[in-house]
């Protein structure tokens, strides 16, 4: 393995934090979804690196599963966003506070 595992981990960590910040700071529902996806992929990257590091294929298999699940989840999320957009004509996350206690 040419790239040391620590570098992969650092990249994955950076991506994860970037995604988290994107999800937390942005108000646009689509951007939040993108942030969550970036976080997922960061985790996937860490898994692939780990599977290379320890020569264990199950890590890569796991990533394929994560991708499939993420694709399904994004489709559901996007459908929900489209529904919200049609109902209130807004994709601002803060305009949805029906559950306020």
């Amino acid at each position, binding site marked *: 393995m040419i790239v040391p595992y620590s570098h992969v981990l650092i990249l994955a960590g950076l991506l994860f934090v970037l995604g*988290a910040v994107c*999800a*937390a*700071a942005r*108000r646009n*529902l689509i951007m*939040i979804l993108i942030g969550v996806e970036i976080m997922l992929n960061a985790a996937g990257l860490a898994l692939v690196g780990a599977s290379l590091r320890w020569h264990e294929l199950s890590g890569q298999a796991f990533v394929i599963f994560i991708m499939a699940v993420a694709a399904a989840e994004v489709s559901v999320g996007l459908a929900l966003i489209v529904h919200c957009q049609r109902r209130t004509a807004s994709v601002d*996350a*803060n305009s*949805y*506070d*029906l*559950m*306020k*206690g």
Partner: protein
Amino acid sequence: METLLLLLLLFPLATAAVNALAGGRLPRRAAEALACAGVLGALAMAAAALILAGRQVFDVTFLSWIRVGGFRAAMSVHYDPLAAVMALMVTFVASLIHLYSVAFMREDEDYRRYFCYLNFFVFAMLVITLADNLLFVYLGWEGVGFCSYALIGFWYRDPANATAGRKAFMLTRIGDVGFGVALALFFYLFQNLSITHINAHAAALSPALATTLALLLLWAAAGKSAQLPLTVWLPDAMRGPTPVSALIHAATMVTAGVYLLMRLFPLVMLSPLALKVIAGVGAVTALYAGLAACVQWDVKKSLAYSTISQVGYMVLAVGAADIVGGMFHLLSHAFFKALLFMAAGVMIQALAEEHNIFKMGNLRRLMPGVALLFLGGSLCLSAFPLLGGFFSKDRILLATFLHPEWSYRLFWGLAALGALLTPFYSMRLYFVAFRERPGGPEAQDLRRTPKLMVWVLWPLVVLALFDGLLNLPGGIGKNFLGHYLAVVPGTRPDLGAPPALEWVMGLGSAGAVVLVTWLTYAYYRRPRRGLRPWLNELLFEAFYLDRLYLAAVVRPCQRLSAFLWRADEGGLDQGLERLALALFRPYRRFAGFLWTKFDELVLDQALVRAAEGLLGVSRGLGFWTTGRVTTYLKMLLLGLTGFLVALALRWYGW
């Protein structure tokens, strides 16, 4: 053999799936043909399997389904003569009902959903029939429950129909709880859920455990088979389309409970107490539903109560340890009850959805074919001598009478009384609906019904009239069915009754049935009103069991939820305050006025303060519940950061 059994299960499932997924693109005829082909294919497989298997027993495992630790559940099949007969009956009756449905639902636009559920229902029933693993049985059990819910409420736009569907679902669900507990107990005791394994090792159980298990199974069977005290869903289930009533509530589903008891009979047999309870439930239900059937004016409801009553005889047969008799009656009942329901469906459609038999009449002149069919079915139901139900019901009564325990004499009395009522209520339907009545419907009032609806009934009437030949009490074909079923553990092909007793019982019941039939004929020669009003109402409402449930269970639940809802609406603190007041008012009265001050000043204040404190806490918590996704995400990330920091600190040993 494996292939046959697999195809037997897969045919209806596959057609249900195709109709569900692609039915919209198929032309109507193709979808209907597909649905019928699925069941007819299953019928062919069932017949072939029966012929090929003979009296052998096959255990086939299709695939291992769940494997977790020591827990194994496989999709496996235990094919013995009992299952063979049942599968053949189910597929045969279901095939005719599918053909009938094609004509019956000709004006319904929702035929796709209908046939899909109908096919899936047959599949689920076949799973119950064949499955070896109890978890697999449970799958079919729930599938049957779901399909009955969907089909009873098939015309869901009328709220009453949807309510009837829900009621059936809830009540059978109460029974399913018993089955679920029994499953858990089986697994705990045997580490295995295979019926064959359980039956083989049941003898090692302690009597108390065997009784518990058998009673749990009875509880499950009572839910599915509409036995007391869970009868009330079946009469309401008549709101579904008539072929559904014929399929679900006459031929197949209600017999599932009895069939389960028969399948696990070697276990049930171990506990005399449980057998006694089973026999008691069956006998009381047989009489109870028979009484209720006597005064119904709705032809389908009357048939529904008669179904409950007849299933009661099957349960009684299990209780009297005679599963051959039970199976025999199950078979003959399936034929004549499906026949009666479908004939009633023809009448109802011809008279523009008229269910009231007292508004019918003249039908023998107007619909001679249907009249013959209905007469055949009614005679079989009333156990007319030498016809279908006669031999099977006689065998059950004989088995009950022969049981040495004295309580069985009582059950025999109840069941015999019910058997006397049977000719009355079944012939009453025929006489009232078919005989001449001035002012009844005339030829111009009749709607045309497809001929197919009557054609499919002829095979049924032939079988219903002559299925007594399967298990004659004497002569050439003596106990044919009994000997065929002999390999099933726990069967007694021959009851071993003294011939004199057998003759006396047979002749006695034959004479009684003929007498009651004649009396019914004489009574209904002229148009009649009902019985005395109070008695009529008591019987019509089936001893107010429905209202009892409404008053004892449904209303209090509604009230409680309404109270909680109000409490919730008034806010937490008000609810608490009200609760406190409600709790303390009697106490205050009891303590007298000396305590008033202390009570008001200290206790009430304390409670109010406590409530205020709680309100403050909830307001404080409510501040954080912004309802905004971003806030929650931030909190989540903050928490995650804190967690990771703590981990990192521990890692570096700080």
